[in-house]
């Protein structure tokens, strides 16, 4: 399951799915932690205001999200040093993600952008619904993005069309 990830940095579909809850849970937004490796790090746990993420005393343990407690607020998304967390919600016939973004120019509300997968390939279009960039986010913007429903396990980030 780790083979391709170790060689290319692209996690396999099976590995990706280990971090998702059942799709019915995603009618509310939930944090997906794409942190599969034992690395010494725990800001997701300490930044969660709802204690929904557990790393534990050994900070090398990968995080576990309690989807009953997680509200999908997105605070962990900009606090993750690995930019390895996003939130996703299945809303009507679309997906609503909150993703971290550390590039300029930052997109604006209503912008149509390329939807990009974990290999960096363009897989469709998506729409920016909201951009938050507050002081406490410490320069990591949070983009709320509307993405086609079929891209649930594919979408990971956005790229400018220009």
């Amino acid at each position: 399951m780790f083979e391709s990830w170790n060689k290319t940095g692209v996690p396999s579909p099976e590995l990706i799915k280990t971090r998702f809850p059942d799709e019915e849970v995603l009618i509310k937004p939930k944090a997906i932690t794409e942190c599969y490796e034992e690395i010494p790090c725990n800001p997701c746990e300490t930044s969660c205001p709802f204690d929904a993420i557990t790393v534990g005393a050994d900070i090398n343990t990968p995080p576990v999200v309690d989807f009953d407690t997680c509200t999908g607020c997105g605070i962990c998304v900009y606090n993750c040093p690995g930019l390895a967390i996003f939130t996703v919600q299945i809303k009507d016939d679309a997906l609503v993600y909150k993703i971290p973004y550390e590039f300029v120019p930052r997109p604006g509300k209503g912008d149509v952008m390329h939807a990009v997968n974990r290999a960096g390939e363009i897989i469709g279009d998506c729409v920016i619904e909201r951009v938050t960039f507050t002081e406490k986010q410490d320069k990591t913007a949070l983009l709320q993005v509307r993405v086609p429903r079929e891209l649930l396990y594919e979408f990971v980030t956005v790229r400018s069309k220009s």
Partner: protein
Amino acid sequence: MNTYELVIIGGGPAGLSAAKVAAEAGLHSLVIERDYKIGGQLVKQTHMFFGSEKQYAKTRGIDIASILIDDVKRHPDKIEVMTGTTVVGLYPDHVITLLQGEEYKKIKAEAIIIATGASEKFLAFENNDLPGIYGAGAVQTLMNVHGVLPGHDVVMVGSGNIGLIVSYQLMQAGVNVKMVLEAADTIGGYKVHASKLKRLGVDIRTRMSVKKAIGTTELNQIEIAWLDDSWQFIDGTEQRVDVDALCISVGLSPLSSLAAMIGCEMKFVPLLGGNVPIIDEYHETTVKNVFVAGDVCGVEEASSAIVEGYYAGLMVAKRLGHEHPDFAARKADYETQLDNLRSGPFGEKTRLGLLELRGERHV
């Protein structure tokens, strides 16, 4: 000749942290830094750090630098800082010779902490001295400290954390990173960093390296090729790539020559990055009252260097009769933090390296 209680060589994360704790324990120290500013390599780390809150996890390295510098400034009566000053000699009678501009000086210290860090390793290939070939850390300094770009099209050699992080930061600065080459068959650094690059469309190629650089007085092109299982280039797999900058990120070597100069017993421990002074559990070398902290005694993340600095500061203060009021609690806390930072698979090299250094395990 001026005599100081404690002289700390190196104003990076380890040195500044050592000065802070030593000052809290009541010790006077002089921090000597060869750069024109303190903060070490933290001043160019624009990414958020890993680790836990005690090592300022999720804070960007540039901001951790400010925190550590402020900590030092809070003790103006205890900590003196000398920048633009290179230690050129370290002698067994604790005489330290300095070069400050064109002035050569001598000082003396009761105790010394060597916190000189590490320097980037180089890679042997044809024309590897062409201007346009940089250490990855140097490129990070150029763009993140001075705001100057190294080029337009870059290839990174090495997929350890530095190679991956600097590649991402090059992209953030608007540079096109054409590919990351890794001679091993798997990515060296944290995969979360690799995934950030892949999302941006950066090609990461394992089992591939640079064979030669092409250009007359500046780099224009590189030749890359696949490697076989015995790390030899496979003939016929060569490809040319147009680049105007090549970054080398193939690991760091401890800058331990001053430790050797003062007579510390040294050992070559590849797991720790190269030649390192032998230290006891208190971070003291085989020369009495000469301590070390940070990458100089084993290359790790800056988070570990900070904690090692605190630890060495605590130990030196006790040795010179200034036991910190919370000595026992601090000592236990720093040891736990270091254990925690090193307990995962990425800490294995350090764990085994330290055993080898202390002669408890032979490879």
